[in-house]
């Protein structure tokens, strides 16, 4: 019950942002919160495999890149349909996640971390070397994704689309982790030997979760490409992957609200710090180190007790 109230309040606040900020003459914040929500979707997707599944994938930003490039590349060739953009973004991300996951999930522990990192870097280099799409410099979107009833060029309409999609992503993840499938995933993370002993082979469940997470993150990527209007391989950098991981950890893993909370805190913090100094990463870096060392259960752990 407490959770539901928390969500209602949070969503109400988010709904109120555009009219409020526009009335205050601060349209920048509409953009900022929109960007945070897009990355929150990415964090929610990572939470599925990291928080609930225990898979430390350091290459999740790859799917943001794939989603964004899907929009950019289709636009490059004159295809502007939003439905097609999003569909291709999700499908392409799912396929790549399947390929990467199939190889990586056979390993575990440190190997898995390094391998997911390496594959993402591979995609990054691929992005850099394809000159038609801008290579290292990236490419500008010709036009934003076109939807029948929605105009993404209107920042407020775009904002509400993102809000809606974020809530869909959160709800979807919530259903998944409490379903039979989700329970197996969580059980495998909790005690792999036990899970194998009762008859669950971890591999297929992890792979499916990996693909779902990749697909969802691809959607975030498509939104992000539309948001920034400019698509670069830097979207797939491992610094970006690290950022998303931090959002998940900061917010509290294996909780529904965690990744969203984490996204807001981290990105608002970045925004605040970068306003103070150009060298904000020097403050953020140690802050992150300290938060990992001292902050065990993340922010959501302050508000709620863990799921039983």
């Amino acid at each position: 019950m407490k959770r539901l109230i928390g969500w209602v309040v949070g969503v109400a606040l988010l709904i109120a942002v555009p009219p409020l900020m526009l009335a205050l003459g601060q349209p920048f914040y509409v953009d900022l919160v929109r960007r945070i929500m897009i990355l929150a979707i990415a964090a929610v997707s990572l939470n599925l495999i990291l928080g609930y599944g225990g898979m430390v994938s350091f290459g999740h930003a790859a799917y943001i890149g794939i989603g964004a490039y899907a929009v950019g590349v289709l636009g490059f060739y004159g295809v502007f349909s939003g439905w097609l953009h999003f569909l291709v973004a999700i499908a392409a991300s799912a396929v790549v996640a399947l390929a990467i996951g199939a190889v990586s999930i056979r390993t575990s522990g440190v190997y898995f971390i390094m391998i997911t990192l390496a594959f993402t870097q591979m995609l990054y280099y691929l992005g850099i070397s394809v000159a038609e799409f801008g290579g290292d410099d990236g490419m500008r979107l010709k036009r934003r994704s076109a939807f029948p009833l929605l105009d993404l060029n209107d920042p407020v309409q775009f904002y509400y689309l993102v809000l809606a999609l974020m809530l869909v992503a959160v709800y979807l993840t919530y259903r998944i982790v409490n379903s039979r499938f989700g329970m197996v995933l969580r059980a495998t993370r909790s005690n792999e030997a036990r899970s194998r002993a009762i008859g669950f082979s971890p591999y297929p469940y992890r792979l499916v979760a990996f693909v779902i997470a990749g697909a969802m993150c691809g959607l975030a990527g498509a939104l992000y490409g539309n948001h920034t209007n400019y698509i670069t391989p830097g979207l797939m950098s491992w610094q970006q992957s690290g950022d998303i991981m931090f959002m998940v950890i900061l917010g509290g893993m294996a909780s529904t609200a965690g990744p969203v909370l984490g996204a807001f805190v981290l990105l608002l913090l970045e925004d605040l710090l970068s306003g103070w100094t150009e060298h904000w990463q020097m403050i953020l870096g140690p802050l992150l180190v300290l938060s990992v060392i001292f902050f065990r259960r993340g922010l959501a752990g302050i508000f709620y007790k863990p799921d039983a």
Partner: protein
Amino acid sequence: MTALVFEQTLNGLQLGVMLFLMAAGLTLVLGIMNIVNLAHGSLYMVGAYLTVAAFRWTGSYLLGVALGLAGTLVVGMIVEIVVLRALYARDHLDQVLATFGLILFFNELVAIIWGRAALFASGPSWLAGHIELFTGSRYPLYRAAIIVVGLVVAVLLWYVVTRTRLGMLIRAGASNRTMVAALGVNIRLLYTLVFGFAAALAGLAGLMAGPIYNVQPGMGELILIQVFVVIVIGGIGSVRGALVGAIIVGIVDTLGRAFLKPLLGTLISPPAAESAGPALASMLIYLLMAAVLAFRPQGLFPARGG
């Protein structure tokens, strides 16, 4: 043509040797201390920067190298004591994130002190020339020196690991950490020594890389991922695996970048090869890694018993 291939192979060997210096340290840290250290690339960067600064300050290359190495060793030990000790008991996720925070910190620190633009680093004047290869072409003396230094370190490392008591502890620790602790070895000291040593190796790679690659914030991360590929291929905890993996990765990557495009150009149309070539070349070592994983998920020479 053969001359070109040979020259590129030497370049590959040079890259391989530098990867080995990084990988050897990192794989030992991983194997013995079971800690994922993303900031290993930062030590590489610190080595480069400190050496450049020391060279400028003292005017002597060798003195610069000595100071740079010593400085990196000190930085490494500070990192171990201040940050890593709190992380040994933690799971890999926490270690990844904490050392990621360290990367941000070091990159920014370096940018504050020396700025974001690439520094100009030069080798010593007595290494500025060329040597004659048997193929008739000339090869930069500096690069040849790197290869020699790297191989010498490899031999020294082999000697220490297989013939000394410390090396025995290291090998035992890589395959069974708890056993070593149970034998009453001063684990803390061992850890600090191993990490300091790994830091020095990374610093050495960094200072040698200075004149060839760019000395700038973030230089460590570029090479770090290749080092990961080396370790995955070679197997965690194995210095031998690090050497074999590093040489393979170094040569495959270098030859791929040099020859894949023209090679493809003979098979498919040149304009297609123009874009596909570099793309494929950059992906080569990762595809190699995937191939190795498909057959031996633990790498070629895993040290761990299981």
